[in-house]
């Protein structure tokens, strides 16, 4: 039944029409890395971590529909080097100080960096000047760690139906903004129980006063690499 399969690194993968390469591949239990993708939401395609070669052409697996006979390359040295470079760019773009970050061990950016053996961010650090928004009683935004994945934007819009978050600005000025008269989270409609609070793949949106409650060794990625996590697109629940 070749007409309903495509191949990932020469392994035939069945798919149902309309499925993206990433969805079909996940269903088949094969890992394609991703950061801004989450099964609950419309694909975004901006982080580029899920870039694969479809018949030799780079495509984002989270947005590209599976088609019969497609030859897809995922796990090649070139693609993995590219993914490492992407992670390096994300690291120098923000202020990612893992040692004091309570998301360490639960952070998808960090886990991806481990997956692709990033030993150094390599590029010259940009050290942007960003702030912390602690105005909300239960939730804190650490803008220094935001990777612009827009998961919170999508979650707040599509699941919480609150439109608390959006991206504003262009290029390097692109930043997460908050929907409130003051622009402060404390004056927004956000509740700690919102999905938007739980989907942040990094330590940008965190629940207050619970940091470091999970001991080292018991954190998600202490146990398994992101590629081996049972469902690696399931973002660890904010505790």
């Amino acid at each position: 039944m070749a007409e309903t399969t495509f191949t990932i690194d020469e392994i035939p993968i069945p798919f149902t029409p309309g499925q993206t390469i990433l969805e079909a591949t996940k269903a088949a239990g094969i890992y394609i890395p991703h950061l801004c993708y989450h099964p609950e939401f419309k694909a975004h395609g901006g982080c580029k971590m899920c870039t694969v070669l479809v018949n030799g052409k780079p495509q984002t697996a989270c947005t590209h529909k599976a088609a019969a006979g497609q030859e897809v390359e995922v796990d090649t040295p070139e693609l993995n080097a590219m993914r490492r470079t992407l992670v390096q760019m994300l690291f120098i773009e923000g202020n990612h100080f893992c040692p004091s970050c309570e998301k360490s061990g639960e952070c998808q950016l960090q886990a991806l960096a481990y997956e692709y053996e990033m030993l150094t961010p390599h590029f010259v650090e940009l050290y942007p000047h960003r702030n912390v928004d602690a105005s909300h009683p239960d939730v804190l935004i650490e803008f220094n760690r935001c990777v612009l994945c827009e998961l919170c934007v999508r979650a707040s819009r599509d699941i919480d139906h609150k439109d608390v978050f959006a991206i504003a600005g262009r290029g390097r000025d692109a930043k997460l903004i908050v929907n409130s008269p003051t622009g402060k989270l404390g004056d927004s409609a956000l509740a700690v129980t919102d999905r938007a609070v739980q989907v942040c793949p990094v330590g940008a949106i965190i629940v207050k006063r619970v940091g470091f409650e999970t001991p080292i060794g018991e954190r998600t990625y202490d146990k398994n690499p992101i590629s081996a996590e049972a469902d690696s697109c399931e973002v660890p629940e904010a505790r």
Partner: protein
Amino acid sequence: MPFADPIVSAIVEKYRNNPTYVLQILREAQEKLDWISPETVETVASQLKIPRTRVQSVLHFYSFLYDKPRGRYRLLFADNITDRMAGNIALFEHMLSRLKLKRGEVSSDGLVSADLTSDTGMCDQGPAMLANNCAIPRLTMRRIDEICDLIKARAPLDEWPAELFRVEDNIRRRETLLTPVAPGVALDAAIARGRQGTLDEVKRSNVRGRGGAGFPMGTKWEGARNAPGAVRYIVCNADEGEPGTFKDRVLLNSFAVRVLEGMAIAGYATGATKGFVYLRGEYKHLQAKLQREIDDMRANGRLGTSIRGAAGFDFDIEIHMGAGGYVCGEGTAMIESLEGKPGRPRVRPPSMVHVGYLGKPTVVDNVESLAHATEIVVEGGARFAKRGTRFSTGTKLLSISGDCERPGVYEYQFGVTIGRVLEDCGAKAVSAVQIGGASGVLLTPDEFSRRIAFEDVPTAGALMIFGVDRDIFEVARNFAHFFAHESCGFCTPCRVGTTIQRNIMDKIAEGRGARYEVNELKRVVGFMRRTSHCGLGETAGNAVRDALDKFRPAFERRLHAKDFAPAIDLERALEPARRITARDDAEAHLETES
């Protein structure tokens, strides 16, 4: 419900409280109020019943919209490489000193601000500037002084001498497209051929998109026509943001009949009844004239319902102004912008022909492409196809600027050699030509026998000429800054990569670069090309790549002797502590050489 500013409310009303007009609303609000205050944002958001963040995301995306007061006079100097070559910086600094301004800052009395901006489509008559988005070309010290006096006298812009704002067409060579056509002739020809007939002729002509990509226009139209659904749209891409291009400016100024009737013909052939002209903010000076043209067409039955009496030929056109955003020239980004959102390119597939404006089938064609439609329906596709080459039919408008005697717009049949073009425009002692703008290719004399054609040197038509005394490194650096400024920020490789590229070019320019930086440049350029989301990122490294390949010495003579140099200027990094400790001993300094 926050306090609603009546002026703003009125503007929102005018746009029937339709959220797809957010960008238009903000532009008009700023023209009246000089900037977009938080109150304005609140008013617009609540009246349109959309989250304020959606208004803010538009406000912060377009560089001609200001979320802080920028003065009653907002001056932006074009800073394309051709403006540089024409001495724009000296003029800019002269103006800053005359007005006692710092770059990007508002004067103490809140009257005026001045800054640099990307290319404004005036490369044939630069240096140019925008005063409250109105173009003022051919700047000289005298003109700057004149402008400063007007500002000091607080003279309203509409009282400034019209001469200041006069924009020349500078048409230097004509073939078929740059010849006038009587209003209605093309429409009648289309009607005579019928919808299918018109489409067939366009296909027969093999005319390819003039925006640079060269997609066959007929195929695109057919795709849209065959797409399911009743509603379709035509979008005329008049964003012409590619540094070095200005031929659309001339078409819109002097051949609007061709452009607008070309749109109607596209509508006729595809079944679309609504068209938009997406006019770049820098071309504000064309807006009123174009609007008059549209109104006149409507008045004379060349737009509206049953055009030229043809039952069912209904089509109308609306102008949508941009507000400073190169990326909006990308088709899907333009559609986002038309929908009143930030101009972020969409994920493709689906193609716009199937899912475009408001999710409906949409044809986005370049100004020049649509103008060609008026030729094709009149003379027929076969005759049209006789001009140019087999794979690149018809004529092509070239925007020629830089080191030549006669900059301006030249019309050639496809296939003309670059050498011939340079000869015609009086370019002597040329070291290189940048073809296709910042995202194009850099060609050197050994390549001047190559031809302008999709099968050889494809281009939207920009030729920037650099004489032997020009520093190609600075050309590449100018483009690196351009892309860092224009990246939309959606995808990682372009957002971060363009910044890294710019920073490395600046480091080399300061004489602090080494072999290491050269290798880094190559790496980042290749990376952006392979992994970026859209054409902007894919091509953002072209200029640097070509300069590295073809003008390596321009880099090397700036490099550190060592193979590695610190990322920072260490002496500069010590400056603050030296100040606070009042130290100047030997230990309070560091030489950059290790």
